[in-house]
């Protein structure tokens, strides 16, 4: 409770600072709108459905790409961990591509797929896939051999070994890889939405882009706030519970 109070106080202070900077006319109001203007924009956008719609479209793109990245990345990671030949080939490629900032995929995606949904999906998948591959591979390689040996003597083999021993043992690594994949997917989708200006569906990135085109600073800041809040919520609602479950089970400190 006390921690929550302090956090609220901190954010109230930030808003107050912002309000003060606006009133002191440090920057032109065009560049720095009042908190109230931003709130007004959010209220209007929420009421006319723009915000809801854009968030929905963005989340749909994000989840689709993210799921494809995980569904592809997990088995690839298992393959690279299990067979040297895959480790030397796919593993090396994953390691290389993971270091590539995901926005770098955008020009390629635009040329291949044009201004389309496919282009955005491609960028998100590329952002997620490689970090999931790497994390799964690392996780499986770090499973203490004694777990395997103990399971072997109890009669576990093949699929049972993979699903009941190796994957659960590698879970902490895999989850942190999924979390990193999520962060990459989110970043790459925003990059994609800002660059891929299609007319079929306006996501948050596109709202941000048109905010800039119209020099509507209240819109730019408001959308940025929404993006930050979604990122925070994903962490608190999805990843935090999984991580704290793992910490409780494994006895690792959070």
């Amino acid at each position, binding site marked *: 409770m006390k921690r929550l109070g302090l956090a609220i106080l901190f954010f109230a202070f930030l808003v107050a600072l912002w309000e003060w900077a606006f009133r002191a006319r440090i920057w032109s109001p065009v560049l720095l709108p009042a908190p109230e203007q931003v709130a007004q924009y959010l209220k209007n956008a929420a009421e006319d459905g723009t915000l809801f719609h854009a968030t929905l479209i963005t989340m749909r793109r994000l989840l689709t790409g993210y799921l494809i990245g995980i569904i592809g990345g997990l088995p690839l990671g298992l393959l690279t961990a299990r067979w040297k030949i895959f480790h030397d080939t796919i593993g090396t490629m994953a390691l290389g591509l993971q270091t590539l900032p995901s926005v770098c995929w955008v020009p390629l995606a635009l040329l291949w797929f044009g201004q389309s949904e496919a282009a955005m999906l491609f960028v998100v998948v590329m952002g997620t896939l490689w970090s999931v591959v790497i994390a799964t591979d690392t996780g499986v390689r770090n499973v203490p051999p*004694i*777990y395997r*040996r*103990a*399971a*072997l*003597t*109890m*009669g*576990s083999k093949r699929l*049972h070994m993979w699903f*009941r*021993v190796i994957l*659960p*043992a590698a*879970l902490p690594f895999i989850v942190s890889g999924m979390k990193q994949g999520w962060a990459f997917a989110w970043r790459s989708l925003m990059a994609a939405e800002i660059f891929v200006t299609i007319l079929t569906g306006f996501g948050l990135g596109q709202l941000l882009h048109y905010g800039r085109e119209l020099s509507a600073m209240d819109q730019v800041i408001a959308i940025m706030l929404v993006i930050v809040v979604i990122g925070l919520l994903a962490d608190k609602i999805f990843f935090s519970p999984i991580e704290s479950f793992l910490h*409780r*089970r*494994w*006895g690792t400190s959070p």
Partner: protein
Amino acid sequence: MIFRHKTGSVTEELALIPPSKLAIENVSKSFRTSSGTVLALDRISLSVAEAEFVCLVGASGCGKSTLLNIIAGLEKPDSGRVLADGKPVTTPGRERLVMFQESALFPWLDALGNVLFGLKLKPNLTNRDRLDVARYYLELVGLTRFERANIHELSGGMKQRVALARALAPNPRVLLMDEPFAALDALTREQLYGDLQQIWTSRRKTIVFVTHNVREAACLGDRVLLFSPHPGRIQEEFPIDLPRPRDINNVDLAARASRIMHALKSFGQTEAAAVAK
């Protein structure tokens, strides 16, 4: 069944010896390391009778774990073979369960889940049966109250008790134990000696127990086999015919232990002399 009975004619005695449960025949194993090839086991032969408790004692690095792993089927010998019930061992299997020195419990499962792990791999049981059996063994090792505990919440002694329950639950005929109590304090260890002897007596398991603790070996084993290092060989055999249950602090037991200790030291010295030459 008790072995190495009193006396009697040779033929009578031979008739009494049950067929061996485990037969290790001329097993050799070497490892290539950065500092050359290590001959970990040199033509080891040994047989273990049904329901016998055999202890392997030796300094660390003399190949005890290697031998146990080969019996388990976790490693392959370079030459020689291991027979279990007359059939060659090629792969690990649940009729020969291993209990390791460090806790090999799975941290993603709770205590009960760990005990259930091996049971779930046993066919022809209902889930209800499995749960009952798992609870029975947790009770046997005195951990009923901790069935929902996470592994890291248990003390070292409790972990080894769960590991013991997990090894016993699928009811293996052979139990291979690799220094299972080495990391525990003396008090916990003494309790576990009592528990283990009681379980062994009531469930008639064949146990091969590895330790570097001579007293522990004398307390638990029907026979104590002394290993010598570099290359690993069985140097001497000590039958222990003291009544059970045995108390580790018993005087007779201490006398046996010191005799074994003496032998252990003596070939330690001959080895040192050989190195000095």
